[in-house]
């Protein structure tokens, strides 16, 4: 299918329609939003230099321009391969990604000796690496858009992806700590001398694809066979099997990889796809009860038995009272809270903060680090941008015309939202802090790549959802302006599944 084969939306169809599927492609709106986002990123880097270096160097715009070029490339790919994709997704993600790169460069500036600051190369340090990772991730996302012309293709590889997902989750748990443990969480595959990847980020996507496919197959049984207790429909015992398996997997992640966030993410992902598939509130109740029960059990076991549960117990203790040991175990969380407090309502201005005081500011605590400089006012804008991305994903799920696509898009959008909740809730002491990455902001190639792939899938699903209907045999089967098909003598084929 080429761009020419897709009929340009006829002017007549731009009139008020349902709005669920707009016949206009809205690509120009995407382009202007993208330019606005890049202007914001450039302004952000300029202000950082003005404050941190006391002067704006001649090449402050280079990172923003490099990012802009890459995103423009992706925009052109979307124009060509997914012309009806959602126009708000790319600019919103581009803004977050750009702010992340800008902040990481700002962190490098703060770490460098004052004399060297002005000569810091574009691709040096954390910010430079993040910039390089962004380029790679966007190319990967464009590649996925090119390979995956229809999201329904994914369902053919569902079992393969599910197996791959489980293997990816299990690898760090099995590997010895030397190859998998950083800061107490066994989430990594470390190749000595080369670097490390976080397979869980990719496992998330693979598992979700499998869940979506499995639940499309099983939704009838799961939603129809049930017993009614206290006004809520509960599923039969044997249908609980897969849920219990996923629950066990996520608990094992909690225990062996020592990471509450990831386990919450997997389990929440499954329960929500289950809920979308069956529309049964009972699944949400069962899921929440199981999760909180499991977490409480781990807490109790951690305090009495210790061993593999000790890490979780520690984190819960820190969460309950971070100021008990402000210079010891609670140091990071206390510093994060103080950082956010220093930022106040409007922040110290980009470049005006003290990010070096906050441990792990480039990964887990980047939201607090940014918050110190742009304040609550700016942070809430970033949160709204996340909210809009999730909303666009859910909208694509509502509008797409097949169940697998609905579950896939809904699950992906929810997972992104849940991840933001887990990390932002963690640094603001709403829930126990766990080492999740902040999507698109945190330094780290695995997370960035996986999240860009997620966005590519959402773009693909939204393209399928918003594309004007042009016949049942693929989008380019018949030009939209052609005469309707003859009814008389049309073959009536009997094809049984």
């Amino acid at each position: 299918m080429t761009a020419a084969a897709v009929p340009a939306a006829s002017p007549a169809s731009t009139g008020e329609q349902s709005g669920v599927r707009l016949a206009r492609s809205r690509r120009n709106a995407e382009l202007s939003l993208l330019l606005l986002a890049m202007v914001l990123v450039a302004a952000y880097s300029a202000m950082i230099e003005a404050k941190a270096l006391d002067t704006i160097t001649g090449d402050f715009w280079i990172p923003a321009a490099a990012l802009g070029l890459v995103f423009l490339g992706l925009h052109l790919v979307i124009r060509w391969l997914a012309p009806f994709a959602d126009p708000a997704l790319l600019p919103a993600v581009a803004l977050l990604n750009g702010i992340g790169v800008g902040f990481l460069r700002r962190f490098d500036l703060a770490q460098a000796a004052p004399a060297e600051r002005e000569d810091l190369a574009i691709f040096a340090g954390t910010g430079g690496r993040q910039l390089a990772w962004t380029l790679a991730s966007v190319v990967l996302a464009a590649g996925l858009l090119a390979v995956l012309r229809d999201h329904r293709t994914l369902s053919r590889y569902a079992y393969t992806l599910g197996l791959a997902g489980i293997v990816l989750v299990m690898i760090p748990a099995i590997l010895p700590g030397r190859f998998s443990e950083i800061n107490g969480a066994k989430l990594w595959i470390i190749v000595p001398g080369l670097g490390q990847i976080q397979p869980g980020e990719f496992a998330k996507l693979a598992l979700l694809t499998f869940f979506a496919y499995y639940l499309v197959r099983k939704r009838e049984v799961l939603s129809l066979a049930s017993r009614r207790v206290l006004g809520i429909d509960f599923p039969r015992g044997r249908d609980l099997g897969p849920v219990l398996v996923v629950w066990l997997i996520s608990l094992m992640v909690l225990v062996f990889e020592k990471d509450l966030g990831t386990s919450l993410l997997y389990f929440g992902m499954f329960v929500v796809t289950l809920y979308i598939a069956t529309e049964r509130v009972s699944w949400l109740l069962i899921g929440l009860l199981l999760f909180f029960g499991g977490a409480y059990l781990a807490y109790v076991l951690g305090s009495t038995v210790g061993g593999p549960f000790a890490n979780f117990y520690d984190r819960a203790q820190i969460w309950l009272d971070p100021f008990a040991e402000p210079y010891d175990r609670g140091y990071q969380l206390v510093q994060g809270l103080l950082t956010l407090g220093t930022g106040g309502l409007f922040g110290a201005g980009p470049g005006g903060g003290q990010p070096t005081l906050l441990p792990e500011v480039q990964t887990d605590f980047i939201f607090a680090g940014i918050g110190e400089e742009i304040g609550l006012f700016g942070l809430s804008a970033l949160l709204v941008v996340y909210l809009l991305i999730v909303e666009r994903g859910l909208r694509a799920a509502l509008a797409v015309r097949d169940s697998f696509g609905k579950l896939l898009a809904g699950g992906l959008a929810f997972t992104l939202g849940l991840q933001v909740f887990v990390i932002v809730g963690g640094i603001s002491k709403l829930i126990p802090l766990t080492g999740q990455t902040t999507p698109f902001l945190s330094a780290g190639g695995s997370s960035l790549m996986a999240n860009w792939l997620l966005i590519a899938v959402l773009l693909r699903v939204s393209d399928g959802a918003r594309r004007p209907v042009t016949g049942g045999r693929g989008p380019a089967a018949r030009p939209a302006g052609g005469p309707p098909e003859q009814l008389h003598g049309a073959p009536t084929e009997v094809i049984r599944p």
Partner: protein
Amino acid sequence: MPELVITVARFGFLILLWIFVFTVVGVIRRDLFAGARSGRLVAAPRGVGASTSQPPSGKPAKVKRGRAAHQMVVTAGQLAGTRITLGEAQITIGRAEDSTLVITDDYASARHARLVPRDGQWYVEDLGSTNGTYLDRAKVTGPTPVPLGVPIRIGRTSLELRP
């Protein structure tokens, strides 16, 4: 750098950030309020010409007759709530993955039925399905015109044409 410039830039940046947010919301506004606006739609049916359209200032017609269908809405079944904006192309319904509307319904065939437009009127046609297609209560045997608001039943799924 003078302090004043930096302060102005600081607040300017925050405002620009929110302007971005509101611009994005503006772009997707029609989607956000999609349901609320559909009440006063008076659009010309596509491909039929302007003969049946009404002046935009006029009130929406109360009579259903003569109004062209613009949407197909799934009213029951697992895809309930899904809307398809109708164009000039046929709509195929079935479990086959290349159908326009892919229904996962145990009582539906792979290629169950299709909706075809002709002269501004939509016709439903059964494609030799196992369990049949029903227009309201009547079984569809040949191409049958579909009035607005009358349910087409396929397995556990129900569809309606809406203006």
